[in-house]
Every structure is written in C-alpha cells, then in structure tokens.
C-alpha cells in the first residue's frame, strides 16, 4: 500500500492505495462523525444515489495497529482523477452545484461539510461524485459554515471570473492551488459585475472580510435556516453564470466542415474495424474536438478520456454527455503541447496529466500535422511519448499533399522536407508494430493501427 501524496491536509482521515483499491483510515477523533454518517442514514442515501462511491469497512491489522486509527474503509480505484483546472466551464459549474447539493442533503441528516474543496469532486465519465467521506461532520446549532470561504475561493470565484472576464481564468488555480483569493478575483472584474445580489454578497462583500484580524472568541451565530438560505442562494447565483461565447478555431469544426463530413462514415468504420481486433478498458482520444469519434469507444464500454485544446468544443462534449448521464466519456480541457504539470507540495500533491494517464489505446485523429508543423514537435518525440502511455495507437496521418497540411506548410515551409509519410512511418515504427494501414476514401489521409513493440 502506498500513501496518497495529496492526502495530508486532514489529520482525521488519510488515504492509501494499491493497484485496485483506495483505503481510508478513520481516526479516533473523526470516529463520532463517521458513526453519525452511517447511523443517520446519510451514507446509505448518498450511496444509493451514487453521489459517493460504494465503500466497505475492512479489517486490516497493519493499518489498524497504527495509533489513533479506528476504522479502515475501502473503495475501488476510479478510472481517472481529473483536476478543476482541466474542467470545462459547465464541468466546473456542475461540480460546484453538486457540492452545494451534497451539503444541503447532509444538513437534512444533521451533518455539514467541514470543507468544500474543489478536489473533493471527481467525475465518473460526465457524472460527478463526492470522494471525501471524511468531509462530513456533525452539524452544531448556530455555527457558521466554516467551509463557506473555501467554497467561494474554490468554486464561486473561478466560475465568476470565467463568466465575466475570460473563460481561461480558472487556470489560475494552477497557481492558487488553495482557491483564488476573493480580493484577487474582485480585482479582475468591473464594478458593474457586482450589480447582482449574488456576486455582491458572495464575492465583493465576502472579500472585505478576507485577511481581517479577528479577536479570539468573536464568532457570530448563523442559524440552520440562514445557512440553508446561503446555500440555496449560492445555488441560484451559480446557476445564472454563463460564459460569453467566443467563436474559436475548433468550435463546431466537426459539424461545419464538408471536407470532413464526407469522410466521417468511412473513418468511423475503419476505427470500428480496428477496435474489433482488440480488447480495451481505457482510451485516450487526443485532439478529440467534441468527441464525435470517442463515442465509438464508449459505446463498447471503454472508459474514454476526451481531450482537446478548444474549451468550447470540449464543453459541448461535456454538456451532451452529462445530459445523457454518460459514465464512460470523461471530457477534459487540456493542451497536449503544454499538458497539466504536477503541482502542490513537493510537486506530487497533484500529479501531471501524463503521470495519471496510462491507457490501453490512444486515438489521435488529424492532430499529427498540428503537433509536427504548427508546434514543431519532432515526429519521433510524438511516437515516443505515445508509446510510453499506451499499448495500442490509432493515428491518422495527414499527408503533406492534403489541403489542410498545405495551409500549415505554407506558413512553415522549413517543415516541407521532414514532414513526410516515410519519416512518419520510420518514427512510429521505432516504437510500434504496424498492424494495419487503411486509406480514408477520397482523402489524402491514412489511418494507422499500431501496437507497441
């Protein structure tokens, strides 16, 4: 068993893991809350609704021999741990509303969330669930919600600045790992942005209390009904937030391009033919746009990470799959040429994208020319990187004669020599065996099916 490097902030409950399970140590101090969580029926309700992962108590002498450890629970490892700075706007909003919903349910059972970390929400495909069962504590009458400030830093502030200023601003969380300070968020907005009750109270007024010196023993009362009102008001304020939609390069690319429209059927049947030959559990679709071809994987029960640089294309994928309650498609807003780095304490608290990404198959359709020409990444580097993370690879080679490649080569003519089909095959066949190669009908593009050597 290995200690989970991100589990050190809460002394009352720590996580360990092995290849199959997560193990949670419940300390002596947390035991009364944990017992209430079970006895009150909250655990059963959340479990029944799939709001938390099913877990069981186990006997583990080695862990239980540790001082202060009273119980050990076990849950299965989830397919992929994603971070808020990789989520699209709607994904983030879903996670925020989900946290509020969980807290409102907890209050009905006499409990409350003692923390409201954005990292406590994960996605099974496009459906959120809550991972930290040790976040629930027994509600004490008239106590203010101690996680209110954290909720606003972790959820409200990133969503608000994304909606009002720039959709990329939640990426600031890569720097502000403990949430965006409210004063920083306020400084990014215009005065007129605070003309709504929600933004004025939860962000502007709230920021005025930030970094204030408070004398010991000074604590105001907040009644349960008032707390419920705060939570419901946060819900309605967040529900109203929508980003300003800008038309981006890849937005609607899969829908508006006749050039690709004609090849869709052929390309889909080629991919299906490849997939029939192998058995996979987890896939990564890079440059997936809105995940049109990712569905070929999820329909076969393969858990698929749908990754693209375009926020709005990937947003569409999330919205559609969330509405359909899809638990196999996991959309992520990631730039492949600058993927999520490892951050936090010791640079291991939150892992890098590639550190979390071991899959059975990678699909890279019509991205190779962008990586090699637009971003100047050598073909051999791309092949090497993919081979470190997958056994199988389905990759579309866009030949130099293709009209889209021609546009790229016109602006980067020095790549005319090295970007060739021969060089592509040499680079990839250093790391992979070619299982199959099929031309896409009517196009100067070929689909390659590779297996790692």
């Amino acid at each position, binding site marked *: 068993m290995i200690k989970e490097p991100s589990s050190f902030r809460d002394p009352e409950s720590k996580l360990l893991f092995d290849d199959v399970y997560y193990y949670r140590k419940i300390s002596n101090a947390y035991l009364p809350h944990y017992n209430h969580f079970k006895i009150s029926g909250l655990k059963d309700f959340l479990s029944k609704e799939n709001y938390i992962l099913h877990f069981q108590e186990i006997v583990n002498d080695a862990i239980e021999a540790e001082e202060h450890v009273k119980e050990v629970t076990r849950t299965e490892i989830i397919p992929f741990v994603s971070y808020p700075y990789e989520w699209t706007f709607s994904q983030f909003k879903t996670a925020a509303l989900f946290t509020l919903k969980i807290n409102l349910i907890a209050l009905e059972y006499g409990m409350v969330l003692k923390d409201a970390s954005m990292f406590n929400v994960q996605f099974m495909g496009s459906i959120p669930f809550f991972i930290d069962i040790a976040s629930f504590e027994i509600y004490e009458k008239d106590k*203010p919600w101690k996680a*209110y400030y954290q909720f606003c830093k972790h959820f409200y502030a990133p969503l608000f600045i994304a909606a009002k200023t720039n959709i990329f601003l939640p990426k600031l969380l890569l720097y502000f790992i403990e949430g965006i300070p409210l004063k920083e968020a306020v400084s990014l907005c215009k005065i007129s942005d605070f003309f709504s009750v929600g933004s004025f109270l939860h962000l502007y*007024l*709230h920021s005025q209390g930030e*970094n204030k*010196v408070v004398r010991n023993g000074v604590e*105001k009362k907040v009644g349960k009904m008032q707390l419920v*009102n705060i939570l419901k008001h946060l819900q309605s304020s967040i529900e109203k937030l929508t980003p300003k939609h800008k038309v981006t390069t890849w937005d609607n690319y899969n829908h508006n391009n006749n050039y690709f429209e004609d090849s869709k059927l052929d390309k889909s049947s080629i991919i299906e033919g490849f997939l029939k030959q192998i058995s996979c559990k987890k896939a990564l679709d890079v440059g997936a746009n809105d995940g049109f071809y990712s569905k070929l994987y999820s329909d076969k029960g393969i858990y698929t990470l749908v990754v693209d640089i375009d926020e709005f294309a990937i947003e569409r994928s999330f919205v559609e799959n969330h509405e359909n309650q899809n638990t196999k498609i996991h959309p992520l807003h990631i730039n492949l040429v600058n993927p999520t780095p490892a951050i936090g304490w010791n640079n291991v608290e939150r892992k890098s994208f590639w550190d979390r990404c071991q899959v059975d198959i990678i699909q890279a359709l019509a991205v190779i020319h962008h990586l090699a020409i637009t971003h100047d990444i050598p073909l051999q580097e791309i092949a090497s990187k993919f081979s470190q993370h997958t056994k199988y690879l389905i990759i579309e080679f866009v030949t130099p004669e293709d009209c889209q490649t021609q546009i790229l080569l016109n602006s980067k003519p020095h790549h005319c020599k090295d970007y060739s089909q021969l060089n592509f095959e040499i680079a990839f066949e250093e790391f992979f065996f070619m299982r199959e190669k099929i031309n896409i009908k009517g196009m100067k593009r070929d689909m390659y099916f590779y297996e790692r050597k």
Partner: protein
Amino acid sequence: MIVYLYIDPGAGSLLIQALIAGIISVFMFFKNIKNYVSAFFSIIITKFRRKND
C-alpha cells in the same frame, strides 16, 4: 502594517457570513412574498381567462 502571513484569511469570513446570512434572509423573505403575490395573480388571471373562454 498587517502581516498577512500570520492571519487566517478565512477568519473574517466567519464574521461576514453572519452579515451575508442576514441580508440573504431579508432578500429571501421579500422574494417569497413576491412569488406568492405573482402566483396568486397568475391563478386569478388563469381562472378569469377560463371563464371568458
């Protein structure tokens, strides 16, 4: 000068939360009245239209 590193930035939030809770409660009170009034009139209007139909 306040040395921020020694201050719990969330401590002031607990105080201001009580103020925010109070404002929201007043806001919700008037919002509920508005909802009741609009619901009342919409029922009357619907009944009136049905009669006329």
